[in-house]
C-alpha cells in the first residue's frame, strides 16, 4: 500500500475513534475501544510516514473536481514523512496512556473526539498537496488544539492559557496565508508540487518576502523567540496528554512549515535568509533553556525546554539553507537530516516527559518541584522511565538526543566549508550558542529530575504518592523508542538519507554510512563516531566493574549505618536544595536577562532578637510579556475602540462594506 | 611564597624527637603527685581528700585511694602537705583500663606533726 494509503487508513481509524467516543458517551469500554482505534490509526500513520521516507514523494491525489480551487489535494512527501511517523508514534503512546489517565465520563468522550479530530487535521496538514487543503487543515488543527487545552475550562488560568494559544496561532495564520497567497499568485498554481517546480519564476524579492512571512507565521506555532509566549501559558493548563500532543507534535508542525518553505517550495534561498533562520533558532534555544532554568512548575519547565529544542532544530535548518546557498549540497542535506532526526527524538522524549508529569501530578497532587521530592522511592517505574527521557533530552549518550545533537554540531562545525570567513564564523558562533545551551540543558535537567525524584519528600502528599493504577505502557513504549532511536541510529540514518535523496537530490548514504555502524558527517575528512558502539561501550564500562565488584566483594556481611549528618541534626526536608536555590547561580550570572527580584522577610529585624521564620523569595521578571506583548495588547485595544463606530448594526451599511470589498478585490485582480 | 620558603630554611627544625628521644619541654609540665609512703596518716589523708577539687582522692579505711585519671595536677595536695606529697614528674600516663589509674597508698597510724 502506498504511503498516502497508509495515512488515509490512519485518518479512517481516527475517524472511527471519534465516532466510538461520541457514541460511547464516555463509558469506560467505549473509551478503551476509542483508544484502541486511535492507536491503530497511529500505527498506520507510522507505516505511512516510514514508507513516505523510503519510497519518496507520491502522486498528487485530488478529491473532487480538480479545477475547483477548494478541492482536496493530497500528497505523501518524504519531507513530511518524519513528521507523519512521529505523529503515529505519539498517537500510539497517548492512546495507551489515556484510559488510565482520564476518568470515564462524557467530558472525556468529548475530549477524545476532539483529540482524534485533531489527529486527523494534523495528518491532513502533513499530507496536504494544495494550498487550500493545507490552510484549511492547519486552521482546523489550531482550533481543535484550542479545544483540547480547554478540557477543564472551569479551572483558573485555563481560559487564559488557551487564549494565548489561539491568539498567537491566528496571528501566525494570517502571515502564513499571506506567504501562500504570494507564491500562489506568482506561480499561478494552488498545488504545492507545481509551486515548488515554478518557484524559480518568482522574483527574489517576493520569494524572500514569502519566506520571511512563512518563517514568522510558522514561528508562532513552533515557538521561536519572541513568538513563544503561548507555550508556557498553554501547556500547564492542558491535560498531560494534551500537553504531550502540543509539544510532541503540534509545535513540530511549525517546524514542518518552515522546512516546507525552505526546502520544498522555495529551495535555493539566498544565504541571508538562512542566516536569519539560524540566528532565530540559536537565540530561541538559548533563551528557552535559560527560562526553563528558573521554572518551578514541571510543565512550564518542559514547555520552555521545548522552545529550546525547537531552537536547535531551526538552527540546523537555517545552517542547511546557508550551505545550500553556498553549493555545499551534501552538508545542506546532512544538516536537514540532522534537524529532522532531532524532530523525531524530541517528539519522543518530550511526549514521554509530559506524560510522566501527568503521572506525577496525579500521584502527588502537584507539579511544583519545590513541593515534590523523593519520588524515586514512591514511583520507581516513573523514575526509571523519566530517567530515559531525561538522559535523552539532556543529550547525554547513549540516548537519542545525543546522536542528533552530535550530528547537528558536526554539521555546524564545518561552517568553514562555505568558503566565506564571515559566514564560517557566524555558523560556528551559532554552534557555540548551542554549546552553551547544551551545557545549561544538562544543568536544567539535573535539576528537573533531581529535585522531584531525589532527596526527601518536601510535602506530605509527595511522601504519600503512589503509582498504583497509573498509566505506564505509553511512556514505556516511548522510552523504548528513545533507546531504539539511539542504538538503531544507523538504520534511522539509512532511512533518512533515502528521504534526503528525494528532498534535496543528494545521495548522502555512501559518505554518511561507510559501514560497521559508523557515522561520518557528510565529509570523510572531518570526524566519525558510532552511536551503537558508544552505547555498547557505555553499558560495558558500567557493567564490567559492577560484575568485578559482585564477584570479588568480601564475604563478611556489611553493616548499613545512617548518613553522617554531623551529629545532632535530624535531616529535615527544608535542609535540601530546592529548585530555585539550585538554579540561583544562573540568576546571578544572567541577571541582565532575568532581572531577578529578591525579598527577605524576617519575624523580627532586631539584630539581637533575630529568631523565628525567615522567608526568602527571588522572582524572575517576564521580560517578553512586559516589554513586548503588553504594549501590543494595549495598542490593539485602542484600535478596537477606534474602529467601533463601523459597527453600526445597519444591514445596508454592511452590504455596502461587502460591495466595497468585492470592488477592491476586482481592482487588485485586474492589476 | 619564596618569602615563606626562606623563613622556613632560616627557622630550621623545631620538631621534637619524642618518642625516640625524651623531650626537655616535658620537664616544665604539671604532673600528678607522688605520695611518700609511711608519712601519711588518716588525719592527713582526710585533709588531702578535702583539698582535692577533682575527687581524685578518697580514703578507704586504712588506705588512701588515688585515681590518677581524675587528677588534674593542680598541686593543691602538694601545697597542703609538701613533706608528704611531691610531684611525680611523670607525664606518660595513658592506660588501657581505668583500673591502671587507681593507686593504693597504705596509711600509717597517727604520726605527730
Amino acid at each position: 500500500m502506498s504511503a498516502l494509503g497508509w495515512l488515509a487508513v490512519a485518518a479512517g481509524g481516527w475517524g472511527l475513534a471519534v465516532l466510538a467516543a461520541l457514541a460511547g458517551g464516555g463509558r469506560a469500554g467505549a473509551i478503551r475501544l476509542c483508544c484502541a482505534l486511535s492507536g491503530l490509526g497511529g500505527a498506520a500513520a507510522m507505516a505511512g510516514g516510514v514508507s513516505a521516507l523510503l519510497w519518496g514523494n507520491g502522486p498528487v491525489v485530488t478529491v473532487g473536481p480538480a479545477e475547483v480551487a477548494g478541492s482536496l489535494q493530497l500528497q505523501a512527501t518524504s519531507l513530511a514523512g518524519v513528521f507523519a511517523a512521529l505523529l503515529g508514534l505519539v498517537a500510539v503512546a497517548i492512546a495507551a496512556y489515556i484510559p488510565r489517565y482520564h476518568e470515564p465520563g462524557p467530558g472525556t468522550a468529548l475530549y477524545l473526539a476532539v483529540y482524534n479530530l485533531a489527529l486527523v487535521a494534523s495528518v491532513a496538514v502533513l499530507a496536504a498537496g494544495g494550498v487550500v487543503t493545507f490552510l484549511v487543515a492547519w486552521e482546523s488543527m489550531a482550533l481543535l488544539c484550542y479545544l483540547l487545552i480547554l478540557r477543564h475550562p472551569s479551572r483558573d488560568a485555563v481560559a487564559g492559557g488557551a487564549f494565548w494559544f489561539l491568539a498567537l496561532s491566528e496571528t501566525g495564520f494570517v502571515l502564513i496565508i499571506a506567504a501562500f497567497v504570494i507564491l500562489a499568485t506568482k506561480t499561478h498554481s494552488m498545488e504545492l508540487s507545481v509551486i515548488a517546480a515554478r518557484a524559480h519564476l518568482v522574483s527574489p524579492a517576493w520569494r524572500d518576502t514569502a519566506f520571511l512571512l512563512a518563517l514568522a507565521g510558522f514561528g508562532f506555532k513552533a515557538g521561536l523567540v519572541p513568538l513563544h509566549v503561548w507555550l508556557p501559558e498553554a501547556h500547564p493548563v492542558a491535560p498531560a496528554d494534551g500537553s504531550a500532543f502540543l509539544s510532541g507534535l503540534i509545535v513540530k508542525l511549525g517546524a514542518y512549515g518552515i522546512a516546507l518553505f525552505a526546502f520544498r517550495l522555495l529551495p535555493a534561498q539566498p544565504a541571508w535568509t538562512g542566516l536569519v533562520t539560524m540566528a532565530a533558532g540559536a537565540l530561541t534555544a538559548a533563551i528557552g533553556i535559560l527560562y526553563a532554568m528558573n521554572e518551578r512548575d514541571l510543565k512550564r519547565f518542559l514547555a520552555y525546554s521545548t522552545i529550546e529544542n525547537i531552537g536547535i532544530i531551526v538552527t540546523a535548518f537555517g545552517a542547511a539553507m546557508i550551505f545550500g546557498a553556498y553549493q555545499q549540497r551534501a552538508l545542506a542535506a546532512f544538516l536537514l537530516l540532522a534537524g529532522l532526526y532531532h524532530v523525531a527524538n524530541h517528539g519522543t522524549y518530550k511526549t514521554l516527559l509530559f506524560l510522566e508529569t501527568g503521572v506525577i501530578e496525579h500521584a502527588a497532587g502537584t507539579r511544583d518541584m519545590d513541593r515534590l521530592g523523593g519520588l524515586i522511592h514512591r514511583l520507581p517505574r516513573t523514575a526509571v522511565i523519566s530517567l530515559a527521557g531525561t538522559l535523552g533530552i539532556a543529550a547525554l549518550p547513549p540516548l537519542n538526543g545525543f546522536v542528533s545533537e552530535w550530528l547537528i554540531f558536526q554539521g555546524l562545525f564545518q561552517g568553514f566549508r562555505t568558503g566565506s570567513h564571515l559566514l564560517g564564523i557566524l555558523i560556528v558562533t551559532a554552534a557555540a550558542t548551542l554549546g552553551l545551551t547544551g551545557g545549561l540543558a544538562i544543568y536544567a535537567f539535573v535539576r528537573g529530575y533531581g529535585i522531584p525524584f531525589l532527596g526527601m519528600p518536601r510535602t506530605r502528599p509527595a511522601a504519600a504518592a503512589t503509582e498504583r493504577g497509573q498509566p505506564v505502557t505509553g511512556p514505556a513504549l516511548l522510552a523504548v523508542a528513545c533507546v531504539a532511536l539511539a542504538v538503531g541510529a544507523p538504520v534511522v540514518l539509512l532511512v533518512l538519507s533515502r528521504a534526503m535523496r528525494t528532498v534535496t537530490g543528494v545521495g548522502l548514504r555512501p559518505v554518511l554510512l561507510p559501514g560497521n555502524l559508523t557515522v561520518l558527517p557528510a565529509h570523510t575528512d572531518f570526524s566519525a563516531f558510532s552511536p551503537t558502539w558508544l552505547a555498547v561501550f557505555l553499558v560495558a564500562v558500567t557493567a564490567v566493574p559492577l560484575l568485578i565488584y559482585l564477584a570479588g566483594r568480601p564475604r563478611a556481611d556489611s553493616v548499613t549505618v545512617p548518613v553522617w549528618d554531623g551529629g545532632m541534626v535530624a535531616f529535615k526536608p527544608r535542609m535540601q536544595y530546592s529548585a530555585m536555590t539550585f538554579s540561583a547561580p544562573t540568576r546571578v550570572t544572567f541577571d541582565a536577562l532575568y532581572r531577578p527580584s529578591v525579598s527577605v522577610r524576617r519575624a523580627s529585624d532586631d539584630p539581637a532578637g533575630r529568631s523565628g521564620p525567615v522567608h526568602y523569595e527571588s522572582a524572575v521578571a517576564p521580560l517578553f510579556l512586559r516589554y513586548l506583548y503588553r504594549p501590543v495588547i494595549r495598542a490593539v485595544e485602542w484600535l478596537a475602540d477606534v474602529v467601533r463606530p463601523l459597527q453600526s448594526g445597519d444591514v445596508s451599511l454592511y452590504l455596502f462594506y461587502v460591495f466595497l470589498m468585492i470592488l477592491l478585490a476586482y481592482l487588485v485582480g485586474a492589476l | 611564597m619564596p618569602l615563606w620558603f626562606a623563613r622556613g630554611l632560616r627557622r630550621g627544625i623545631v620538631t621534637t624527637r619524642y618518642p625516640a628521644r625524651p623531650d626537655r619541654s616535658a620537664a616544665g609540665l604539671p604532673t600528678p603527685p607522688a605520695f611518700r609512703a609511711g608519712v601519711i596518716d588518716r588525719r592527713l589523708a582526710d585533709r588531702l581528700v578535702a583539698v582535692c577539687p577533682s575527687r581524685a582522692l578518697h580514703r578507704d579505711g586504712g588506705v588512701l585511694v588515688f585515681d590518677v585519671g581524675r587528677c588534674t595536677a593542680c598541686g593543691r595536695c602538694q601545697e597542703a602537705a609538701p613533706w608528704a606529697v611531691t610531684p611525680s614528674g611523670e607525664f606518660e600516663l595513658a592506660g588501657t583500663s581505668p583500673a591502671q589509674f587507681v593507686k593504693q597508698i597504705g596509711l600509717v597510724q597517727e604520726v605527730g606533726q
Partner: protein
Amino acid sequence: MTALQPVPAGTLASLLTAIGSASVRDGGGAVTVPVPAARLETAVHHLAGAGARLADLFATDGDQVTLRLVWGLDTERQYLITETAIDDLEYPPLSDIAPAAFAEECEIYEQFGVRPAGGKPLNRVALPPHAGPDFPRLGHQPAQPPAEVHAPHTVGGQAFEFPFGPVRQVGVESLYYGLVTSGEEIVDLYLFTWHKHRGLEWRLRGRRPAEALFLAERAEGLSATAVAWSVAAAVESALGAEPPPAALLTRGIALELERLYNHAAAMAALCQSTGLSVGQAAAEIALERLLRVNAAVFGHRYLFGVVEAGGVRRGPDLAALQVGLPGGYGELRRAADALLATNSFMDRLEATGIVTTEQARRLGLVGPVARASGVAVDSRVDQPAAPYFGHPPAIAVRGTGDVLARFQVMLDEAAESVRLIGDLAAAGPGTGAAPLPGGGGAGLGWAESPRGEALAWVSLDADGRITRARLRPASVRNWRGFDDAARSQNVFTDIPIIEASFWLTVAGTAR
C-alpha cells in the same frame, strides 16, 4: 589609633537622680542602686540614652526573682548595677530598648520562668531539648518546659537551610550552624550551643570560693585567668578582702601572658582558615613557645591555678619570664610581619566579616571585636582596678570592623601586652593571698580577657558559701555579633575566617 569614644554618660549623680534612686551601695568600682519594677523601663531608657553600656543582665532568686542590670559607665570609670525585684512573671521588654539584652532575656526565662512582656519569641540558649520541668534550674519555681521557649527557625520560600555541626572540623569545639541560604547569598545564620551547657552557675552554688575558682577556670579554659580573676575579684569585693598588691601584679602578668598566647592561637587559626599552612606553622611555633613560657613562669601551659580568692597561689618565675618571653614574642612578631607581607592572605582578610560600629555598640560587643569596629571598650581602662592604675595599657582601636581590623588590633594588643608584662614584672610581683573575712555579701568582679571584658557577680552567705554566682565570659557577648558579621558576606568560605578572627569559645558562651 583614633578611639571613637562612646557618647559621654551624664555624671553618675545626674544619672541616679534621672532614674530616681536614692539609696546607693558603693563597692569597689561598682555602684549598686535599687530600681522599682515600675520605673525600670524609664531607667533603662535614661541609661541607654546617656550612652551607658549594658554589660550584663541576670537574675537572682530569693523569695522573689531579682533582675540585675550591669551597666558600664565607661566614661565614669565604674560599673552601675541596678537591682529590680520582679513580683509577677513578666517585666518590661528591655531588649527593645537595649538589644544587647536579648540573649539574657531568653536565658532568664529558661532559668527563672519570668519573661519580657509583649511575648516576643525567645530562643533556646542553655536548656537542652530533653530538659523537662525537673531539669535543674537556677530558679526555685521551674520555668515552663522549654518547648515554648525556643522560637523555631523555619525557612520559607526559595531559601534552604544548610546544616553544619555540631561535630565539625577536627580540633574545634562542638557548635551547630544553621546556615540559611538562597544557594548564593547567606540569608540568615543561627547557632545552637546548648549541647555544651554544663550548668556551671548551677554548680557554683554552695561552693566555697576556692572550689568555685577551680570550676571557673574551666568555664572558658582559654581565658582561665580572666574568668578566675573576675570571680576572685567579685568574692573579694563581696567580702571586702584586699589582695596584696604584689599578688595583683602577678595576676596582671598572668592575664597579659594569656592575651599573648590567645592572639597567637587566633593568628594560627586565621592562617588555617585561609589555607595558608606555612603561616599557620609559623604562628603555631610562636604559640607553642608562648605556652612553654607560661609553663615555665606559672607551672601551667594554660595558667590554670594561678589566681586564688584573695590573691594568687603561685608567683611568677621572673627569670624564666626574662629568658622566655622575648623569644616567644619574637616568633609571634616575625610570623605577623611575614603575614602582613603576604597579599594572598591579606586580601582574604580585608573587607571580610564586617561589624559596623553601630552594630557593635547596639549588641554590646566587647574586646578586640568591638575595638576593631571603633568601639574603644576595655575594662582595664574604662573600669581600671589594680594593678592597672599605675600601668594603664594603650587601647588598640581600628574603625573598619573587618577581619583585617581585628587581626591588627590583636597584633597591637600583643605588643602592648609585652610592654605591660615588662612594667608589671619590674614593679615586683609576688605570691600570697589575703585571708577572706567572714560574713556574707555580694560583689561584682571583672577582668579584660583576651576576648574582652569578663564579668562575674557573686553573692556569699554568712559562712562563706556561694549562694549565686553569675559568670559572663566575653564569649557570651561576642557570639551575638557573629551572625551579623557572617551575613555581611555572601561567601560560605569566609565564615571560618570570621570565626577565627572572633576567636571565641563555645564553652564560654554555653558554660
